[in-house]
């Protein structure tokens, strides 16, 4: 109950803040003019986005032949990017839903940005399968709707159809979860808005929220319900993504370990991305007292855990490949480590298996610059993991006569750059116009680790 005061733990929020301080600190970046740093970052991101727009426009007007794909390698760069971005999204849901169910109160400082990151990452991910279709203007064919072709329905036994349902549900639920969380904060901004225009916009978005406890009571309930729904959802999404591969007969893909392996990898890469973004945000917007070293450390620990699962999965895959006695499986895995794409395999192993082990050391976990650097290394490693899984398996399949090699074209690389541009542009706009920290939730954990007078001795 709220009667218990404990000063044994470190407070979650530093600097003896009052409720008004929190409101001011979080809202002030939205109320002042954007800084030069923001414009600089925005210009770069937007340029990257434009590179992607040009690449995709060229692709749409010319055709899939602009990519480096061939008869043997039908999936490569594009699907790698898709799986990479979906994985990034998973950390947001983990923070907002799973840590909520586990009553991890530190999540309140990072959940808003992490959820926004999820939404933007899913937008980036969603683009890739659509542009891969060859005729993306017919993308709506994946939706089962009464049509004049029979009606001919989609094949509900196909993992690609499952994927469409999983991703669109994931996007919708993530967006609803994020928006419901935003409503009380939008009302806070509305009530302190100086300009009439701003008051109108936030008045529209905040649904007439006035802080009534009769509303809060139901609000808390739906928040819990959404968390409870999002938790199995996030597991299902990457499970289904892994089934895109696992239900095929390609050696290296057709394994039962894929769902847990993919889910752990997704959370692993997602937390690396959360750290990359949050460490910048905390520095630039001076949120050091909200996103404290304690938060950074907690996220590093999750990286150790999920990184451990991923390493375990790498080992298990090898063991099963060698132990199963299946010639093709065995060859594929030896080919990954020793074949023409072995460089990408060893990048993956060094980034994903070795890097997280450094987080066992407290000095490293509390060194912000180093954590930032390592988080980028993990991001790179996880991108390569998907590249290794997808490309190496396809380049050397059952029939040596059909073996081929793959390298991305400039169009594919520009598309990847463009997806980063889209992600960063959306994130920067979010940082500019919406509160990056859940004001209401942070106020709720302010008394954590403090005595009745709000002090920590």
């Amino acid at each position, binding site marked *: *109950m709220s009667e218990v005061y404990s000063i044994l733990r470190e407070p979650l929020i530093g600097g003896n803040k009052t409720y008004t301080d929190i409101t001011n600190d979080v809202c002030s970046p939205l109320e002042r003019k954007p800084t030069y740093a923001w414009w600089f970052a925005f210009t770069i991101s937007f340029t990257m986005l434009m590179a992607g727009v040009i690449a995709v426009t060229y692709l749409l007007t010319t055709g899939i032949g602009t990519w480096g794909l061939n008869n043997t390698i039908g999936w490569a760069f594009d699907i790698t990017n898709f799986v990479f971005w979906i994985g990034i999204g998973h950390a947001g849901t983990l923070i907002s839903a799973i840590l909520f169910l586990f009553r991890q109160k530190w999540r309140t400082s990072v959940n808003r940005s992490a959820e926004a990151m999820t939404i933007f990452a899913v937008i980036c991910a969603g683009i890739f399968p659509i542009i891969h279709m060859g005729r993306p203007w017919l993308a709506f064919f994946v939706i089962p709707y009464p049509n004049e072709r029979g009606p001919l329905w989609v094949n*509900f*036994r196909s993992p690609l159809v*499952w994927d469409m349902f999983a991703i669109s*549900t994931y996007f919708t639920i993530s967006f609803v979860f994020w928006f419901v969380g935003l409503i009380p904060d939008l009302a806070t901004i509305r*009530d302190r808005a100086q300009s009439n225009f701003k008051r109108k916009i936030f008045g529209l978005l905040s649904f007439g929220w006035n802080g009534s*406890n009769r509303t*809060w009571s139901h609000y808390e309930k739906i928040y819990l319900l959404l968390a409870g*729904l999002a938790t199995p959802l996030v597991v299902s999404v990457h499970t289904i993504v892994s089934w895109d591969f696992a239900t095929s007969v390609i050696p290296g893909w057709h394994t039962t370990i894929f769902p847990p392996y993919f889910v752990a990898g997704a959370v692993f890469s997602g937390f690396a991305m959360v750290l990359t973004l949050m460490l910048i945000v905390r520095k630039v917007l001076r949120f050091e007292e909200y996103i404290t070293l304690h938060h950074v450390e907690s996220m590093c620990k999750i990286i150790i855990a999920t990184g451990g699962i991923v390493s375990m999965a790498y080992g298990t895959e090898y063991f099963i490949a060698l132990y199963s006695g299946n010639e093709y499986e065995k060859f594929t895995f030896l080919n990954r480590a020793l074949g023409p794409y072995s460089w990408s395999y060893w990048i993956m192993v060094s980034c994903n298996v070795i890097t997280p082990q450094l987080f066992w050391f407290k000095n490293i976990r509390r060194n912000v610059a180093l954590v930032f650097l390592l988080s980028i290394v993990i991001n790179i490693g996880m991108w390569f993991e998907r590249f290794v899984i997808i490309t190496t398996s396809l380049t050397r399949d059952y029939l040596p006569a059909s073996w081929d090699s793959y390298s991305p074209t400039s169009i594919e690389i520009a598309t990847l750059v463009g997806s980063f541009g889209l992600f960063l542009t959306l994130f920067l706009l979010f940082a500019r116009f919406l509160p990056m920290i859940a004001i209401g939730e942070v106020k709720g954990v302010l008394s954590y680790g403090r005595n009745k007078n709000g002090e920590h001795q």
Partner: protein
Amino acid sequence: MSKRLLVNVFENEHDIIHATRTAREEGYTIVDVYTPFAVHGLDEAMGLKPSRLGWVCFALGLTGAIAKLWFQIWTSSQSWPVNVGGKPLSSVPAFVPVTFEIMVLFAGVGTVLTFFALRKLFPGKKPKVLYEGATNHRFILVLEQRDAAFDLHNVRTMFERFHLVAMEERIEKEEQ
């Protein structure tokens, strides 16, 4: 008929819980409490019943799951059966993933819409604000003055020990 309301303002979560509980125990009618964040223990202090939205969520999820399962069986085995690799037309295990997704979609979106409808929240609604600051740093307890026995002085004495910040009277036209 108009209501006479008494707005009592406090400055932290502990005071509002105690003030609310005391007011309820003394038999005052609590119209509502306005707080900047969800204060734990306040529902109980106000005597609110636990939200029943969980059942709504369950019913919606069940509806979504049954509807989608039926739809998949109908499209795959009745409306236009297509033989895919000799698999049974009504291959229920393969229908589980999409059934699950639609269950979550119905339950999640439906429950949130039910919540908006229940609390009459909609885009552009004008918020009812009795005292500034409920979305920033104030905790506001609103009592209704029902009868002649309602004595402002008594209320003030009762709340003084919970660090009452302000106390104001409001007349509200009917329409809650």
